[in-house]
């Protein structure tokens, strides 16, 4: 039998009023309107209420620079690989923080939720990384995250990560807004899930996760809580794992051999530490890895398994180039050094040299802790002569060479290689 439409009597004689018009008005127009109203307009009305439930003062509109940055974000295709949508799922909330509420998106024309996550979600990016980290990463992502597949955007810069155009600074301004309202809000509980009809057990899990303050595991913070990273027994496997982790995560900034010479270093202030010039205690490295170095581009690595951080610690300790032991310094020199230290260094670096002097709170990054890291003599001399740009450490041109030598020797005696982990 041949394929037939409705019987000719239905259509043949009706001309303009045949079956075709049923298709046009029901299939084409009717079902379109049904979907438009059911899945667009109706939820939209409810979302309007939610979006306007938050006071405008709690979520400031974008500034002109932020808006320009948002356009850069949209046109470079950032949203194709980065979502801005923390879903109402424990796994998402655990990783990124509170779920993305409708009211957070009230100024987003058009929305940039995204549908694919190749890079991390950016909904909570606001304070996670430092500005120079962001710019250097935009200039050349692999320079800072060696295994990244993100494209670089060198045309947003005038030849280097430290010379951004307004396009780059606008984009940075926009990135700083992501999750800002939520961070300022303090309301951790996802208040807008009550009518969601979600699985109560899962909702409870999410609410519990949100009850504790969320700090992104890569966000540097000033904190003293540390895991114990004492190496178990030094082994080849441990060293190999540490070396691999170093290459994957640290070499971008600190250089393949740890000397701090890297393409990323150009854009970062303060510069990445030259790991070859310092002897670190396990606590010192635990502090840097677990909490990052707030005020610098050094992120935290709290998302790493503690065993990996221990391997990394053991590996970084082997990067120190000079011998760990040397001839003792004469007592008179040390005494002179102590005097110089008390006069010039103590206010910031503290009586014990632990970086907790009375003035320390005024500085980010915090003053160096001499008990957990021992710098080589030459490195200290360099710092005394030039200071450390990007930190509170100035140069000390008025100290005599002898004073410098003495205080250098004194500072090195403050190091306590065997201290256990902080409580």
């Amino acid at each position: 039998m041949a394929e037939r439409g409705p019987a000719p009597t239905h259509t043949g004689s009706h001309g303009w009023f045949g079956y075709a018009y049923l298709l046009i008005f029901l299939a084409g127009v009717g079902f379109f309107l049904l979907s438009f109203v059911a899945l667009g307009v109706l939820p939209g009305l409810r979302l309007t209420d939610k979006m306007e439930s938050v006071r405008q003062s709690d979520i400031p509109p974008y500034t002109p620079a932020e808006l320009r940055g948002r356009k850069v974000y949209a046109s470079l295709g950032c949203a194709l690989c980065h979502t801005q949508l923390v879903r109402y799922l424990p796994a998402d909330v655990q990783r990124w923080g509170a779920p993305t509420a409708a009211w957070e998106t009230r100024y987003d024309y058009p929305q940039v939720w995204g549908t694919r996550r190749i890079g991390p979600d950016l909904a909570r990016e606001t304070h996670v990384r430092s500005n120079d980290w962001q710019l250097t990463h935009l200039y050349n992502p692999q320079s800072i995250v060696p295994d990244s597949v993100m494209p670089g955007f060198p045309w947003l810069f005038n030849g280097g990560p430290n010379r951004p155009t307004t396009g780059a600074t606008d984009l940075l301004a926009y990135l700083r807004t992501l999750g800002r309202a939520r961070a300022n809000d303090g309301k951790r509980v996802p208040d807008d899930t009550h009518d969601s009809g979600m699985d109560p057990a899962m909702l409870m899990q999410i609410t519990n996760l949100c009850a504790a303050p969320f700090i992104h595991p890569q966000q540097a913070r000033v904190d003293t809580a540390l895991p114990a990273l004492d190496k178990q027994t030094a082994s080849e496997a441990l060293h190999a794992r540490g070396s691999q982790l170093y290459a994957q995560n640290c070499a971008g900034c600190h250089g393949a051999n740890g000397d701090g010479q890297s393409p990323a270093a150009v854009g970062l202030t303060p510069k990445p530490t030259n790991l070859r010039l310092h002897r670190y205690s396990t606590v010192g490295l635990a502090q840097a890895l677990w909490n990052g170095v707030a005020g610098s581009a050094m992120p935290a690595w709290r998302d790493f398994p503690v065993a990996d951080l221990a391997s990394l610690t053991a590996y970084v300790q082997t990067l120190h180039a000079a011998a760990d032991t040397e001839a003792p310094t004469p007592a008179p020199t040390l005494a002179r050094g102590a005097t110089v230290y008390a006069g010039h260094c103590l206010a910031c670096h503290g009586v014990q040299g632990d970086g907790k002097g009375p003035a320390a709170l005024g500085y980010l990054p915090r003053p160096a802790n001499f008990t957990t890291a021992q710098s080589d003599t030459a490195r200290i001399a360099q710092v005394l002569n030039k200071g450390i740009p990007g930190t509170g450490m100035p140069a000390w041109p008025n100290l005599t060479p002898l004073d410098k030598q003495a205080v250098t020797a004194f500072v090195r005696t403050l190091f306590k290689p065997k201290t256990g982990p902080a409580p």
Partner: protein
Amino acid sequence: MSNQDVQTAHHAGHEQGPALSFVTSESVASVETGLIKAHAYAALASLMIAALFGTVVAIKMVQPDFLGDHIWSTWGSMRANHTQGILFGWLGNAFLAFLYFAVPRLSGRPVISRTLGWWLFGLWNIGVVLLGWVLVSINMPDYFWAIKPLEWTEFPLAVNLVTEVSLGLMALQFIPPLARKPNPDGMYVSSWYIIGALVFTFLAFPVGSLVPQLVPGAMGAAFSGLWIHDVVGLFATPFVLAITFFVLPIRTGRPIYSHFLSMIGFWLLFFSYPLNGTHHYVYSSIPMDTQRAAIAASVIMGFDVTLVVFNLLMSLRGQAARVWEDVPLRFMWTSIVIYLIVSLQGSLQALMPMQRYIHFTDWVIGHSHLAMLGFASFGALGGLAHVWERTPGCRYRPGYMHLAYWLILGGLLVMFIDLTAAGIAQGKLWTSAAPWMDSVRSSQGYWLVRTLAALPILLGFAAFITGMFSGADGRADSRQTLSKGRAQASLVSGG
């Protein structure tokens, strides 16, 4: 009708302008052969270019520095050019070529205007495809000219405006001949799908492209979600089904298995597909009952597709040998089978337990390639081959087409399996405590395989195009194939 008559009728249909009615085989309307060819050329050129854009995107995920120094070749622009090029350049032109071929045959009258046709051709290819690619490459920041961060409508608003005008002209060109007075025997299934798709897409396109610019954030996303599904479900799908319902009975010489199932399939498609949209934002702040409704509709869609595919495959029962040797039928059969797979996969992955793990992963990229390359492009390629064989001055060489089939299918299957596995691996890592970069590192092997899979696909497209342009002296071959089909004769005797 005698064999001799059929032969004469074919000549009338192919060489001298007028088409034969699809239903009665009478010579009833003239066909715009020039427009068929122009759209087919544009489709094939766009296919190649858009596939190359896609290949660059794939290479960049393995080698981020590749073509990385310029804004015109940045990853985001290349991806926008890939997806929009496939949608508008390749599928859009292929569908238009098919419409110019099929609408006069289905309706018994010519399309509205040849002049309109050439305007539409120019607008579509210069004002949409070319302008879109150029504006994406220039990457202007201004609202009207800027790339949009919205899936399936990345081209700037300026291009969207031309697109909407073109969609309106398409409706004007093709709906009146079909709608005004059907053939004495009534309207054929393909006509339903063509009318539905033309009207629906004209209305749905602004919803995806313009509304999210006017309503913010989560509200806009609800509308984006509609378009993300409508573009596949109510643009690509109905046109491919129109091709399938048209080509199958012609080439097998046998009618569609069940008219009742055709009707159920059609109405359920147009009812349930548009309600799928929100399944792209499951577990978002869009009201949960809206999400659940969309998920329910997605499941209904799976049932619907099962009915449609059952109907189509039953129409091919006992025809294995013919499907195997006949180029268009083989492409169409593959399209039908993949339609079933990709739709059942779609229903499955819309379910909340699946969404938890596979949303945002490469699983979805595998799914979209199975839909747009496996289902839509195989259907369009088969349809184009059928059109080519019956358009004056156009013949294909079957050898190249068979080669193309295996290359494209092989590449697609490698890519699909690879990306699906990648998605599972990514989802597993994301729900663990592993650092983010672990998921990137573990994906790199999969991304390399996916890039390598581009090679057979590109070669397959090249073989197809070569086949399309090297058939001049293979004319006798394709006539032979044609007379084997003798579809219209059977249809007439049956109807």
